[in-house]
């Protein structure tokens, strides 16, 4: 009997030590998260406080995750498939960093006054240019887009200004380049937490994630770094990922793109020629 009692005492002592250890460990983790700027209080949102951006630095864009620089808000887990799909019940906020790097579709107003929803998910990439009608640096981009810029294959450009309460719809309509999708959406600026204009966000449509983001002072700089970022994401012109090639994935898209590059559009009579005879 005495042995059993001592055994129970020992077990209780071990469990007590374990619980105390877990509580201390939990406290250390919570303190570390707090020090890192992550607030776990579900009543306070957003859970992640954006890192301060030094706007005194020379504007630049850096879409290369290997070389983060000052002035660029870092995006984590870029070009990876590691984003967990975490869902919580109604009323319970998701983990603080669950949406970091996730891309949101765009809903806003078109220059003609219509309502517009734009999907950034799909086989291609979307470069979202957050511009204002008033800033001097933005004026260079409005002009460049009106004159026409060369975009990498499988990439489209979408211009997003703030909504009607913060931008003049008439000014946006006057400056919107005819061939570029332009919308006004303050919600998009909030969703992507845009710190400054002009600002660019590159969305990897296949993964639905933000592949890179940053500010830039000229289109030339954006274009150069865009090419590199897209190459990393497997969007480069003519580049086909080995896995996609072996599985025949996106074969139809690749064939369509090659035909379009050759100037052959749907309905082109050359698509319906009889194959040439080998004997002739």
């Amino acid at each position, binding site marked *: 009997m005495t042995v059993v009692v001592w055994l129970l005492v020992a077990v209780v002592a071990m469990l007590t030590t374990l619980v105390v250890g877990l509580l201390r460990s939990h406290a250390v983790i919570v303190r570390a998260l707090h020090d890192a700027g992550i607030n776990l209080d579900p009543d306070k949102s957003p859970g992640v406080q954006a890192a301060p951006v030094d706007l005194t630095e020379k504007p630049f864009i850096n879409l290369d995750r290997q070389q983060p620089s000052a002035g660029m808000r870092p995006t984590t887990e870029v070009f990876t498939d590691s984003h967990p799909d975490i869902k919580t019940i109604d009323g319970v906020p998701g983990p603080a960093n669950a949406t970091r790097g996730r891309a949101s*579709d765009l*809903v806003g107003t*078109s*220059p*003609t*006054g*219509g*309502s*517009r*929803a*734009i*999907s950034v*998910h*799909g086989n*291609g990439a979307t470069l979202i240019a957050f511009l204002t009608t008033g800033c001097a640096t933005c004026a260079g981009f409005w002009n460049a887009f009106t004159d026409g810029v060369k975009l990498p294959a499988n990439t*489209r450009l979408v211009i997003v200004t703030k909504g009607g309460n913060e931008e003049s719809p008439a000014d946006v*309509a006057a400056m*919107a380049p*005819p*061939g*570029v*999708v*332009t919308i006004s959406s303050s919600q998009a600026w909030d969703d992507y937490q845009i710190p400054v204009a002009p600002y660019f966000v590159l969305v990897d449509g296949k993964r639905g994630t933000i592949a890179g983001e940053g500010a830039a002072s000229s289109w030339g700089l954006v274009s150069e770094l865009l090419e590199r970022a897209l190459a990393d994401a497997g969007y480069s012109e003519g580049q086909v990922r080995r896995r996609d090639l072996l599985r025949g994935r996106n074969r*139809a*898209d690749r064939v*369509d793109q090659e035909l379009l590059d050759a100037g052959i*559009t*749907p*309905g*082109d*009579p050359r*698509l*319906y020629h009889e194959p040439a005879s080998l004997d002739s």
Partner: protein
Amino acid sequence: MLKMEAIGINLGLPPGWEAEVDSGGGAAEEGATTVRTPRVHLGNFALPPNRGDFGSGAVERMVSGDVLICLLEESPEVIGTGLYQAGSMPTISAKDFAPEGMQRPIRGQSGAQKFFHLNGRAFALYIVMGSHISRASFIPEINEVLNAIELT
């Protein structure tokens, strides 16, 4: 499902779909096609900024797997007359599509047209399939998009 609403038309868009609802009669940007009547364009591909009511400007870019839905509002006076007899949102099937159903024929593509009225509003529904051959596989998604449209 992405939600949007304008001029009494509520849309629910599956992933990858986008849309534009235009009230019509508004000033268009230079080079754009003026929208004369209220219209809705929905597509599972990147809709270009300038499009005609029946999708010109977009259909030329459509490839296999692309679907464009045009919903064009007509005057309520046509309700119950001629083509506008049906009083509910149409359901689409593969046999509704034909190359001859295109407003402007494009080889390989096909179109379907339906006319209906709902809640005192009359609409022409025009759907373009990027590939006539593979149309059957897109019918469920098209009907999902149509069923999510609410007209008030």
